[in-house]
């Protein structure tokens, strides 16, 4: 690998990407950090800005709604992701065999992942409408009473989570399915011929071998779930009340509802730090440059 890669300067090749990254990522991050230390109202003329140091961060800690959004965000992550993992694992185990139409079924199961997030949010909002929504039609047909799902804080929160599970468990499935396909079949068959029960094989052969893939899937899902915005925004706009105002929705409300750009930037920095921690963990664990380079261009 050395030799050919040794001479010449990589700078001309890297420079354009670095310039863009600087303009749209690094500079905005630094700028957010600066804004987060100001009392900075959002107004066309600029408004009066005051340097207040850590003032916004102190206000955040004292803000009940901030803690509420954090609680909703964590609840979302801790409920949705384990269920997505469970469903994805079960489906991967069951579909990990050759049968007629298997390829087609696997491809179709993945379609929700590519449903535009906005359209997904709108469709779920539509299905949960009173009178003409599909869920209520079904309940009415069963003789059950009609419920304004998105009008109830609890149901709206559950609906937001169900929407995410519906859309994203196939993503987990696809990763785990690929991981399972990577386990040599003779390892699995040996355990089966030895007469090991299904659960025994699952816990002492399959899961240990699948562990790195599971970790990757969980980290990817956490990173993705931390930034969830559009689906929830079009589904409930964070309501009713503040019942589905997840972290990004509250940040949005601070900036463009309450016009407090400084507070919103403090929240942005907070979310950024958490995301970087998870992203660095993921990258260091499973995405070394050597691994990427070894994988070759065919996958």
């Amino acid at each position: 690998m050395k030799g050919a890669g040794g001479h010449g300067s990589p700078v001309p090749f890297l420079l354009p990407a670095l310039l863009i990254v600087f303009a749209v990522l690094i500079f905005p991050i630094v700028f957010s950090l600066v804004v987060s230390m100001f009392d900075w109202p959002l107004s066309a003329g600029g408004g009066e800005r005051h340097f207040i140091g850590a003032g916004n961060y102190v206000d955040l800690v004292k803000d009940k709604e901030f803690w509420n959004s954090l609680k909703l965000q964590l609840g979302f992550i801790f409920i949705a992701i384990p269920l997505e993992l469970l469903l994805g694992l079960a489906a991967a185990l069951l579909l990990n065999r050759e049968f007629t139409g298997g390829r087609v079924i696997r491809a179709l199961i993945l379609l929700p992942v590519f449903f535009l997030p906005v359209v997904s949010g709108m469709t779920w909002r539509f299905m949960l409408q009173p009178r003409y929504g599909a869920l209520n039609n079904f309940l009415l047909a069963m003789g059950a009473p009609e419920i304004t799902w998105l009008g109830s804080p609890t149901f709206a929160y559950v609906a937001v989570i169900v929407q995410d599970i519906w859309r994203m468990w196939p993503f987990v499935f696809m990763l785990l399915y690929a991981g399972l396909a990577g386990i040599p079949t003779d390892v699995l068959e040996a355990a089966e011929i030895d007469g090991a029960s299904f659960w025994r094989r699952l816990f002492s052969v399959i899961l240990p071998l699948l562990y790195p893939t599971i970790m990757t899937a969980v980290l990817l899902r956490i990173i993705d779930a931390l930034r969830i915005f559009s689906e929830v925004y079009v589904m409930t706009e964070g309501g009713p009340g503040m019942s589905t105002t997840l972290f990004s929705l509250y940040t949005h409300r601070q900036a463009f509802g309450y016009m407090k750009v400084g507070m919103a930037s403090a929240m942005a920095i907070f979310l950024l730090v958490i995301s970087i921690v998870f992203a660095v963990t993921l990258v260091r664990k499973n995405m070394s440059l050597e691994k990427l380079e070894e994988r070759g261009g065919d996958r």
Partner: protein
Amino acid sequence: MTFRLSTRRKIITVGVVFFAIALLLVELYPIAITLLNGFRRDIVILSGQKFALSQFTTASYLLVFKNRQMMKAMGNSIIVGLLSTALSVGVGAMAAYGITRFRFRGRNALAYSFLVFRMLPQMSLVVALYLLFRTLGLRDTIAGITLAHSSFNVPYVIWMLIPFFAAVDKSYEEAAMVDGCTRWTVFRLVFLPLVAPGLVVAAVFAFINSWNEFLYALILTGVNARTAPVAISSLIGGDTLTWGQMCAASTIMLTPVFIFTLAMQRFLIRGIAAGGVKG
């Protein structure tokens, strides 16, 4: 024994097929609803009638095509998608080449930071981008939203292309270098044709990333540069309940995405693991 094992397998397979079909029905139901309601009138939808073939109409599609704002937004989506894809594939291919075919200090750190950048939440950046774009006059311009989309597409494309560039055998470039080619010529004439499949895959996913993007479009654009996801979301709200139009417009947006995904099965895992799904 072998006979019994294979009979048992067959029974299990039949069970699995039924299970798979049940899963499919649940997963495809909301998608089917969107596709079907695009062909029904709003009045029919809002009255909660059951589906019937007699309700079939293309009225909602005609309304979408006559809706100037929606058409403009879809045009913007195509333009922004193509521009940001071209920009990120061009710049990203150069960077992937620089990272994989040179040895330099900080090479690993650089590759890692591109990976991490790919995963940053848009909400962390959008407030600062809004203030910056407003100052620079980039708010509500095609250039502005294209630039914003490249904040996730450039790192994404680099990540997608590194394996393709790394897989090229070094004898190709050695031969070219002996013939006196510069690095730039080697990149253009040797590498680009060899990694062409990778460029196509990266371009398709970069386009979908931009096509699906909502948050930047919501905050950074207005009447001029608004893209389709925001336009679709504005079809519903308050007293306007044009579900038929919403479903028709959504179907139009979904068609290219579904065609690409089904055509690119082989690359799906890398595509989605690389953050192809944008909130």
